[in-house]
């Protein structure tokens, strides 16, 4: 299953724009998160801390959301639209 990456995550995962993950038997978001934790511990940590959220079909997902092969899944670092009052984020805070 293809997982879209944005912002700082593109620089944290070798390869860039997308992440290819095998969808396990257990098809919930938390299972996907577990697989990511194994493969990319640094990203897994951010997911654990809810500093990176998972979206399914362009809506923020819960960890119990069930995934289908056809779902559009993405990992979203903290948003920073607009202009003012933002601060630097190295991905590790």
């Amino acid at each position, binding site marked *: 299953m293809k997982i*879209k990456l*944005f*912002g*700082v995550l*593109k*620089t944290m995962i070798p390869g860039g724009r997308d992440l290819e993950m095998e969808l396990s038997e257990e098809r919930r978001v938390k299972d996907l998160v577990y697989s990511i934790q194994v493969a990319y511990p640094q990203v897994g940590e951010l997911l654990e801390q809810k500093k990176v959220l998972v*979206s399914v079909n*362009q809506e923020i997902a819960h960890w119990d959301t069930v995934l289908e092969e056809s779902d559009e899944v*993405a990992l*979203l*670092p*903290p*948003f*920073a*639209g*607009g*202009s*003012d*009052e*933002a*601060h*630097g*984020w*190295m*991905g590790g805070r």
Partner: protein
Amino acid sequence: MAVELEESMLVRVQQENFSIDEELERVRSRSRRIGGIAMFLGTARDHSKGREVSSMSFDHYEGMAQKKLKEIRERALRDFDIIEALVLHRYGPIEIGENIVLIIVGAEHRAAAFKACQWCIDELKQITPIWKMETTPEGEVWVEEHP
């Protein structure tokens, strides 16, 4: 069809710069009842949290970003006593001083226009999948909003 097209122009994520007079015209032309228009324009500052910034670039989640801006407009129209709202955000590389984001809200009276305008930009920062990378003397830094 024409109405749909018009509405799609009121919520946009685009790379190109925009003219405030043109965007304003889209809002004011919707009703002659409009008496107060509140606007917010976010521009690219040359520093951020004490760091110099020489340029910046915005990444966005195509599709979801548009969807969230549409939600913001619709909720503003539902929850405030306003007549029209426009929500616009740029992506890609942006030079210092350039426009980044524009909110325009037209209402009969100014209090509702101000309240809705401020709500829109606050909400935009909360729920819209857009990310900012600043180029600073220490290199490229991804930024996040204050909690």
